[in-house]
């Protein structure tokens, strides 16, 4: 099977679309164009750094008056809210000021102290797709929006009759048609080293420090926050979640990063699986934790025997 692959810089990363080429090349290219257009739409609507995006408008105005948003933005905000509620706040789209203080997100000149006490409960979703903030805060949908964009692109390719392929937005990855036998995860400390993991889900997302890490209070941290503690997570850990859709996979990486113990029951709720990789920065040695490992290893004695 030959594949047609293209990549564009979008959503702050490189987005790759790869599809099985069985139809005429021009039709395949047009299908890829339309899938990129879906991603671009999400990029424009939900870009935290673009003052013209809907998210920026919410951040600027919605504490003063309700702001009406597109169906896309509404859908992602509603999904974020469900995830926050089910995770008891481990997932929270209002942590941007925390990340800004650590230098991960650029400051917009506002007083982050004033924005800090806010949480997801301060975002109200009213009727007719109106959004209202109970207090000034900053919503950043970047991760979950990336997952959503990948899901939209896959749906668009399927609508266009593409049989199989994948969309990869910097590690938010979803397959359709044929599932891969394995997915490669980057080593948390040496991102060019790849660790293959067998997979049976169609979507995967990874959160880790890789090229974005900072020293904070003597600790190397990555751009994932613990919303309740107000701290950032260690850069020596990567969290990969396998799920049925990319938006869920991306959101769950944040939950597991924030609290692997409490976050675990959420994996079952969404029929997802998490792989945590802890790296020793000195030796590069990794410990790999897999939420499915007990089940996997116990269910297939042959594997255990060959692994012993």
């Amino acid at each position: 099977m030959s594949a047609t692959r293209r990549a564009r810089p979008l959503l702050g990363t490189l987005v790759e679309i790869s599809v099985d080429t069985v139809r005429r090349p021009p039709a395949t290219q047009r299908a890829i164009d339309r899938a990129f257009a879906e991603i671009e739409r999400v990029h424009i609507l939900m870009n935290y750094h673009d003052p013209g995006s809907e998210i920026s408008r919410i951040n600027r105005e919605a504490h003063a008056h309700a702001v009406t948003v597109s169906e896309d933005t509404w859908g992602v905000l509603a999904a974020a809210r469900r995830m926050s509620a089910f995770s008891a706040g481990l997932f929270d789209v209002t942590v941007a000021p925390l990340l800004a203080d650590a230098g991960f997100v650029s400051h917009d000149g506002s007083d982050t102290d004033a924005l800090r006490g806010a949480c997801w409960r301060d975002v109200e979703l009213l009727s007719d797709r109106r959004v209202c903030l109970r207090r000034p805060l900053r919503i950043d949908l970047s991760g979950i929006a990336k997952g959503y964009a990948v899901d939209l692109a896959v749906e668009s390719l399927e609508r266009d009759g593409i049989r199989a392929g994948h969309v990869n937005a910097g590690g938010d990855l979803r397959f359709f048609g044929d599932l891969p036998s394995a997915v490669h995860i980057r080593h948390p400390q040496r991102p060019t080293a790849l660790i293959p993991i067998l997979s049976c889900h169609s979507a995967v997302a990874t959160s880790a420090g890789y090229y974005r890490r900072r020293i904070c209070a003597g600790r190397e941290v990555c751009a994932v926050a613990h919303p309740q503690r107000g701290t950032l997570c260690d850069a020596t850990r990567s969290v990969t979640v396998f799920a049925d859709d990319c938006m869920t996979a991306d959101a769950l990486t944040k939950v597991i990063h924030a609290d692997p113990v409490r976050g675990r029951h959420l994996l079952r709720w969404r029929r997802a699986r998490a792989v945590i990789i802890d790296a020793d920065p000195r030796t590069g040695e990794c410990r790999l934790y897999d939420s499915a490992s007990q089940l996997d290893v116990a269910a297939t004695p042959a594997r255990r025997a060959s692994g012993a």
Partner: protein
Amino acid sequence: MRKELSGWSVFAVIAPALAAAPAFAVQYLTLEQAQQLMFPGASRFVSQPVRLNAEQKRSVERYATVKMRTSEQPVWRVEASGTTLGWFVTDEVFGKHEFITYAVALDAGGTVRGVEILDYRETHGGEVRDARWRAQFAGKRYGDTLKLDADIQNISGATLSCKHITEGVRRILALHQTALR
């Protein structure tokens, strides 16, 4: 190493070998394919590389706030029935481990119509030697296991860098401002 994660059992301990692995490279589009895709209505692509003099180079750098590595940029003037449709520019950016060639399509007025990646190359290392981890592949289709090391398209984790491309596009816009108007 930090203490173990409570409630989770260590599935494997992996020591990545330091031996260098072959580079991973993807060619997304050839030059001609990118030209056809980005300007489907074009009749002709006229190669017209831009050579900047020292003053123009400074001007580009000032406007784009990034350095120009070379003073020559590959540029094609795109024609359709005798009129200029726009410009097709290729560029290269380097990161710590990656090397990216990409193309930018500008309309006649200098607005970006699109950006496509032509080539992406990355050097990676990391053969993994852990029995428990390797055991996950036991009982799987033999061909799949064999393919694992070569099959690097399914990578979850950040793409190495997109920041350089954003800067590069800014530089190309400045180049248009300085030398293509």
